[in-house]
């Protein structure tokens, strides 16, 4: 008797469960995205591939090479070469090893010049470890041309300042050197 009862409960439950399936089959709109063919639209705050905004008016990248982002980074992703100094300072090289990057947003919050951003690009996988190292040419919108204009603008500005009587020391093109992010702790983990 009990066995028979259990059979009927099980039998009915199959159709109760299938009822939910049916409800979803006919009553719902599709939620899946056929990924390589359709691309999901990401939110405006999306944390994807970095870019260095280009200031069209000034004709140069916004970055002044202050290394605050490199200091804020927990995994030391960022290294840069400074170009010039003083009020015309900029960068000639800006390298990010995204193989180490956590996409944590701390560098972007640290920047006082709004000069580093994260864009909507999310397909960053590669077959090669070196492909995750992004140089200034990859990060600047406009690529090599933007970097060339950036360097030219800064060098011209420094030259102009030197000619209009700025002291030698103040306006010279600084020795190009790699700025190593400072050590954050005693022994590194």
């Amino acid at each position, binding site marked *: 008797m009990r066995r028979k009862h*259990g059979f009927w*409960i*099980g039998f009915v*439950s199959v159709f*109760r*469960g299938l*009822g*939910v*399936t049916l*409800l*979803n089959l006919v009553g719902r709109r599709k*939620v899946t995205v056929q990924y390589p063919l359709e691309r999901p639209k*990401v*939110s*405006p*705050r*999306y*944390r994807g591939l970095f870019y260095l905004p280009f200031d069209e008016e000034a004709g140069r990248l916004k970055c002044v090479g202050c290394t605050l982002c490199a200091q*804020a*980074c*927990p995994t030391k992703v960022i290294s840069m070469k400074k170009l010039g100094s003083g009020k015309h300072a900029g960068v000639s090289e800006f390298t990010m090893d995204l193989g180490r990057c*956590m*996409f*944590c*947003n*701390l560098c972007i*919050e640290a920047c006082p010049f709004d000069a580093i951003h*994260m864009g909507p690009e999310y397909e960053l996988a590669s077959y090669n470890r070196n492909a995750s190292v992004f140089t200034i040419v990859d990060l600047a919108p406009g690529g090599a041309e933007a970097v060339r204009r950036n360097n030219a603008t800064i060098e011209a500005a420094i030259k102009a300042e030197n000619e209009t009587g700025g002291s030698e020391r103040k306006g010279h093109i600084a020795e190009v050197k790699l700025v190593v992010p400072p050590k*954050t*702790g*005693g*022994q*590194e*983990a």
Partner: protein
Amino acid sequence: MAGSEAAQVRLEPDGGMTVNLGPQPPSTHGVLRLMVQLDGEYVRSCEPVIGYLHRGLERMFEARPYRQLVPFTDRLDYLASLNCNLAMSQAIERLGSVAVPERAQYIRVILCELNRLASHLVFFGTFAQDVGATTAFLYAFRERERILDLLEAMTGARLTYNWIRPGGVPADLPEGFAEGVLSFVRDLLKELPLYDRLLTNNPIFRMRTEGVGVISRDVAVAFGASGPVARGSGLSYDIRKTEPYEVYDRLDFDVPVYDEGDCMARYRVRMDEMCQSARILEQCFRDLPEGDIATKMPKVFRPPAGDAYSRTESPRGELSVYMRSDGSPNPQRVHVRAPSFVHLSMLPCLLRGVKLADVIAILGSLDTVLGEVDR
């Protein structure tokens, strides 16, 4: 195969059998390895082997200044990373006696409860799949996708959010966020009865979970179980009630408790908690005050020498962070009390004498996350 360490199955001289579950099968939810000694179909003993996901996070905390610690906590409990962010941020705030603005506290609670819903939905789907029901997984992940979209609009990330910082939250709610959450909550509350029809009342699911893996109240207390595991064993213990943090003391919600202590009780606790999280979210948006979203923290944060302990209720249980400062910019010692680790330590005791098929059901009902166990 006999005698080889690496073999998946080893025959013992006394007729028993050692089965090596893991570290890669999907049913152990991460990289957990279980060495199960079998006598026929029954488990004689079981030894969990952990450490496959060890990254030395506690050591890495010590080598970094306070402001850089939070992104690493995303990698603890990756299904509920905002709850981990909160535990770490609270510890830092207590160390430096930093007050958090009220609006930031509400936003934190909203984010944590959304993350709790997402985590419990993953539990619902994967636990159903562990005991052989496939469809529930797809439904749970469909709902979770909406939470991830909301959190993406808020934080910009879909899994490792890093959006609760010492001092507050880095940005305010985006436009349309409240409406999005509230409409999601309404839909979820309509959806949960369907889940009951689909899964909870299914006789096969009940036979697989009722009376399986019973944890008595005393055993739960002795092992230090917390969260849904403790509440499934009749222990009314929720940090949000016993030691309220943020604005939980102002919110009205119940703590679901079941006395049976079996897999079904733990499952029911989590399903009921989803309703309570929905209630909390509605109240938060009703009461959300205007104001600042963060207290400004100094660039180099040097808290006075001392220690701090922050206890939070993560979806898995009591997640606590102990932090000691010696006055320098880096913490001297950080310890994370991970609920999954505690629950995993109950496993050898729980699995003695059960059938091999129930091992997966019991492990699934504990809802461990290995990122938190190994750290």
